């Protein structure tokens, strides 16, 4: 629904270079620049991060809870995707 507070934006913060961006909340802003500045004021006041992403909420495509069965459960069976499935012979070193 139209809101005079401007569109909603989702905020992702990267704690340190090299680390993943983590979703930490959302806010209202009227344009990209404002979204970025507001995100900085709202979510990084205590040094929580070095970098920010903001995305308009309407641009996020998400899976839905009903999908959990078909989307995610099949991968639970495929344990060969996990490093722990494999045995590394002694003497090869860390892998």
């Amino acid at each position: 629904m139209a809101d005079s507070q401007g569109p909603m934006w989702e905020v992702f913060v990267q704690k340190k270079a090299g680390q993943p961006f983590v979703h930490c909340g959302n806010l209202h802003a009227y344009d990209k620049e404002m979204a970025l500045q507001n995100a900085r004021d709202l979510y990084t006041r205590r040094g929580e991060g070095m970098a920010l992403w903001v995305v308009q909420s309407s641009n996020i495509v998400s899976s839905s809870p009903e999908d959990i069965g078909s989307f995610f459960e099949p991968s639970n069976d495929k344990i060969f995707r996990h490093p722990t499935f494999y045995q590394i012979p002694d003497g090869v070193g860390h892998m």
Partner: protein
Amino acid sequence: MSSALYNYTLKLADDKLVLAQRLSAWTGHGPFLEEDLALTNIALDLFGTAKSLLEYAAKIEGKGRTEDDLAFFRNERQFTNCLICEQDNGDYAKTILRQAFTDSFDYLLYNQLAKSKDETLAGIAAKAIKEITYHKRHSHSWVNRFGNGTDESKMRLQNAMNELWRFTGEFFETTDDDKELSKQGIAVDFSTLKGAWEKEILTLLQTANVAIPLDAYMQTGGRKGIHTEHLGFLLSEMQVLPRMLPDAKW
């Protein structure tokens, strides 16, 4: 004590202190919650810099006074801030435009001051410049929004311009003492910043479709402690508690 350095530091401090005091009145009354936080943030930064500068001024003075003594026990004629800082907040356009003017000035000033031979001033400036960069981004983007927004915002921005422009000449006033300190690589001579400031501001005003008032007579006096009638009220409010209980520690 170097009275020249003391006076110079006090000018820097008073600009920040008085402007911060004005800005902090917006807390809880901003045009929307996110902006409330942004303005409060800026006020916090300004008070922080003011505090550091006043601490240094007190040290230079060498009379054992503290930054709070300087902030709360000097009277109107002893404050040396620019007149623009003490003007009333007006509407959001006036507050934002004032920020745009002072942020541009501070950006130039503190960038230079960070190279000062005086380690303390250089250190304060190095920290401040990061904050000022952000402030300038904020105020300039809002000037743009107002100038390219609605008819009402354009009108309010122009009104703000008509009220504030006459205070912008004072930024660049200098004294012989300041010039001497500047020769020594300690202070930044304010008058040297005029060209760069005008260039940046005129570009901003053009982008925001703001006209410069034809009657460009510049007000003066703040640096000599001759203020507008605003400062008395501002200080009364700011200083009331310590003056009411002068023996108290807070």
